[in-house]
């Protein structure tokens, strides 16, 4: 009896697939329903941010970093660019500004994780989660709007501080939101964490082992779900992170469910950080005096990193002493995590592609830059 002849099939997902979280093309090699290999094809959202930064001064680069890189975590990008410039030029930052920056970066992490949770819910067929996450995210956007004037793109951080002080009553609003949000977070847990369908779609799916995570240089929640306790906020503290108490959630399973749990726990920790910062918020200036907007950064090079919601965001800045940077290299967390995707997907079914892709939380503007 002759066995059935089988051959591999190449399936092209994207760049216009609604579930690929942006313009990502996946070339999937299939054996029946099983995935043999996945080849991500990137570059559809390339905007040459690194090159454009060479033609703008450091203040103008803040506006560029907002939208050119990871647009869901604009304030963290601002921080990344500023931290490099401030380290090289040795710009003093007032204490109050450091705390305000920390509060805003953590609010941005909440907003980003909420958007991830909502869209991940849609990917797995839980539509309710999306609507509720958007509802809470809108409150964060309102908090942003009353301070920075923008909802997604803020241009709020400046060399040596922040643009304007918090308006009166804002801290109370923020504290109120944090307490409200903790209750909503319990609701998400009730809705999703114990749900058998949610568990069946995510538990044990797309496993990335600890060794693989290290080999691929995975960072952020993806690495922490694989048992790698790596968080820039703990290992290289910046701004006010060394003065607040928080835990870094680590899970060892390395599957989609672990990545989901890491982000859920991170949201709780972020709320804790915000509340502590609001309690400790010192009085005083929010912007260092006599830092010009067209600051000339002394010649030299520096590599700095911040913890973006997606992972370890690094900036390598080379300056020749002028008003503009000579070269900026962005180490994007999404780009590195997308690389680890090829290993996560091997051997799983077609139906799991979206579940695994959604769980690494990529932003294509960050991947392509």
């Amino acid at each position: 009896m002759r066995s059935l002849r089988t051959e591999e099939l190449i399936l092209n997902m994207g760049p216009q697939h609604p579930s690929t979280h942006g313009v990502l093309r996946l070339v999937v090699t299939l054996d029946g329903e099983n995935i043999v290999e996945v080849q991500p094809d990137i570059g559809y959202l390339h905007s040459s941010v690194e090159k454009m930064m060479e033609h703008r001064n450091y203040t103008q680069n803040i506006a560029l970093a907002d939208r050119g890189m990871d647009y869901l975590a604009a304030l963290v990008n601002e921080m990344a660019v500023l931290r490099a410039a401030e380290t090289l030029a040795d710009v003093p930052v007032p204490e109050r500004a450091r705390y305000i920056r920390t509060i805003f970066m953590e609010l941005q992490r909440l907003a980003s994780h909420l958007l991830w949770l909502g869209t991940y819910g849609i990917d797995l067929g839980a539509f309710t989660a999306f609507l509720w996450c958007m509802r809470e995210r809108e409150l964060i956007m309102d908090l942003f709007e009353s301070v920075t004037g923008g909802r997604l793109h803020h241009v709020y951080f400046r060399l040596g501080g922040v643009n304007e002080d918090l308006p009166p009553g804002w801290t109370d609003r923020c504290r109120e939101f944090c307490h409200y949000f903790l209750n909503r977070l319990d609701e998400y847990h009730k809705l999703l964490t114990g749900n058998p369908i949610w568990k069946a779609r995510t538990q044990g799916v797309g496993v990335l082992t600890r060794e693989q995570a290290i080999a691929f240089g995975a960072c952020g929640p993806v690495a922490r779900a694989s048992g790698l306790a790596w968080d820039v906020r703990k290992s290289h503290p910046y701004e006010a992170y060394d003065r607040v108490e928080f835990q870094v959630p680590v899970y060892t399973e390395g599957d989609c469910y672990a990545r989901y749990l890491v982000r859920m726990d991170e949201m709780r920790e972020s709320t804790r950080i915000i509340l502590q910062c609001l309690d400790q918020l010192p009085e005083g200036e929010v912007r260092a005096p006599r830092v010009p907007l067209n600051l000339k950064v002394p010649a030299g090079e520096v590599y700095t990193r911040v913890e973006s919601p997606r992972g370890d965001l690094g900036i390598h800045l080379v300056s020749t002493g002028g008003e503009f940077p000579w070269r900026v290299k962005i180490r994007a967390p999404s780009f590195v995590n997308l690389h680890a995707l090829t290993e996560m997907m091997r051997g799983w079914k077609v139906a799991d592609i979206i579940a695994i892709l959604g769980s690494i939380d990529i932003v294509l503007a960050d991947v392509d830059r």
Partner: protein
Amino acid sequence: MPSLLQRTAEAVQGLVTGLGITFQNLTRPKVTLLYPLEKSNVSPRWHGLLALPVDTETGNDKCIICFQCERICPSRCIHIEATGKGKERVLTRFDIEMDKCQYCGLCVEVCPTEAIVFTPHYEASTYNRANLLYTLEDLHRAAPKEPVARGILR
């Protein structure tokens, strides 16, 4: 592998918990807005459309033609020209390409005389891109050129 009975019980429990939370949310106040009919209020610091207010005492522009906003703009969308010397120096052109503007607010920040400000408008879309070139008169009026889109309801 849990038994069929156990799995069924888990599924029913998950369904009941989910629906329970859903019904709790039904009783909460609604958070959505009937957008084209109802407008949301923006905060006083809102980065909206730009405007050039006229000095109410003298009736002249507040702008002292220092070109700082033109220089700081990251997308280079402000174009200023002036004629005359000394006190007779007047603005002949102040164009803002609103399609290029990224609402960063650096021009508002550097202006020494508060001659360029943000307005609380957030509906800047038009049917023609040429309408997004805001000239001096448009910026004085500080209003969008076209009536804003009202949706299909009106």
